[in-house]
């Protein structure tokens, strides 16, 4: 079920208008989110100082850069939670989604994409504040900055597709939290969210190249803070494209079977 560009633009505009109204709530959420990277930053900086200034190739300033860019990537990573499907099914919102001549994937993707613009704009002052406090070492080239913009949205799209597909598990079992929490834990450890991937043991660093998590999170960060060669950037963008296709493919495969399992609630 295709969607027109017109729809995408209109829905994105709708999302921007709505989320701007909820800017206070958005800000509270963003600010609460800062605690996590700040904690990691302090921990690793402490370790770095104990080890003579660097750990895994990162100085204190490099860590600061990593974790500040982290906050932007983390915001871009927020997509439709797989838990949303439980609500959709139980509260009958699914009927509204299904009656449209439009695949709900498009509907959700367009909405979140619009929301991201609001998130990015709201993030800027937070970034400035963090930069003033933690003094990061950040000096990307024009090429790296451009690649970063692409990688940022690529990461969003990869995670969006994968989690949308993951959410469809809800149609097949009621014990979804086990599946979801496993995914989130693996993601936390293997994406570069907890710590830069170069700090992990070698075997882990090799492993994460074959998993999607790094490409949605650690990779965009590394692009901007100048950790990667041009060849590595290109490979990374291709990996993002591949995982995006994979996610969309999963959705395409699972949607009809999911609908078939769907029993509408209510007489």
């Amino acid at each position: 079920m295709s969607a027109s560009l017109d729809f995408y633009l209109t829905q994105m505009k709708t999302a921007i208008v709505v989320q701007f109204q909820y800017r206070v709530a958005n800000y509270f959420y963003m600010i609460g989110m800062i605690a996590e990277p700040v904690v990691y930053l302090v921990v690793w900086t402490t370790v770095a100082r104990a080890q003579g200034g660097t750990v895994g190739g990162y100085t204190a300033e490099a860590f600061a850069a990593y974790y500040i860019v982290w906050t932007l990537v983390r915001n871009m990573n927020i997509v439709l939670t797989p838990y949303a499907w439980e609500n959709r099914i139980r509260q009958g919102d699914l009927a509204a989604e299904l009656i449209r001549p439009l695949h709900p994937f498009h509907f959700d993707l367009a909405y979140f994409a619009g929301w991201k613009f609001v998130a990015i704009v709201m993030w800027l002052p937070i970034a400035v504040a963090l930069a003033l406090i933690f003094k990061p070492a950040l000096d990307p080239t024009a090429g790296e900055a451009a690649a970063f913009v692409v990688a940022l949205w690529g990461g969003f799209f990869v995670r969006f597709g994968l989690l949308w597909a993951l959410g469809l598990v809800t149609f097949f079992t009621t014990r979804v939290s086990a599946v979801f929490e496993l995914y989130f834990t693996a993601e936390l450890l293997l994406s570069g969210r907890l710590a830069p991937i170069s700090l992990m043991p070698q075997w882990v660093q090799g492993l994460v190249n074959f998993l999607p998590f790094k490409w949605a999170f650690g990779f965009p960060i590394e692009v901007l803070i100048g950790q990667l060669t041009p060849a590595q950037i290109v490979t990374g963008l291709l990996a993002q494209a591949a995982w995006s296709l994979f996610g969309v493919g999963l959705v395409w495969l699972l949607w009809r079977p999911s609908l078939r399992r769907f029993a509408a609630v209510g007489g």
Partner: protein
Amino acid sequence: MNYLRLAWLYLRVGVLNELQYRANFFVQLFQSLLALGTGLVVLGLVFGHTNELGGWSRAELLAVMGVHILMGGLIRTMIQPNMERLMGDVQRGTLDYALTKPADAQVLVSVREVRIWQSVDVLMGLLVLAAAVLQLQGRFGIWQALGFLAALALGGLMIYSLWLMVTTGAFWVVRMENILELFEGIYHAGRWPVGIYPDWLRTGLTFLVPVAFAVTVPAEAITGRLTAQTLIGAAALTAVMMTAARMVWKFGLRNYTGASA
């Protein structure tokens, strides 16, 4: 009204109620195990690069993690459910039911809810602490244990007082849900000994959000670092915060009108 007895009665009802939902136990257990696993991986990762963090050894940091999990379990079992319900009551104007009961309103709104399955974390925290104590091979005797319990109790009361004061804010600013998310984030900081944070952050964590007293101080008791000064300071701060919370509560009540005018 004997308030201990009141708390006990509510606890019994709450527990009996939740025991129906046996599935929740397994869900909670699974999530707690995942969180524990993650914590251990992080510790392993950090200590793959260093031998000590801010003067704390690996076993000592394990103790901190144990306290963090334990305290987190206590908060989510006893404090958070009550504060969330209180906020909901204020927003929907249903607080009146609590206010017309023949018991002190503050006690009532603080003990009536319990999420028993979150206490899995309390057990898990204790297990981690036991492992840490074994690894520490230091002197862990009756005084350390008493100090630990005292620090734990004081820290818990401080966290409670803070939550109550912030939740009471719902009397004036009805939409407060996001504040609770802020709390979660800040509690995250307690996962590590407060000493590693830069001074300005440490002051905030200790006095504005007594995470340090809730986690680091009991951990200090376990690892034998606790000084009498710190403990007395904790007691003093607890007294101040409990008093402040009581005053804020009473003030809030006086201004309270049903949210649905």
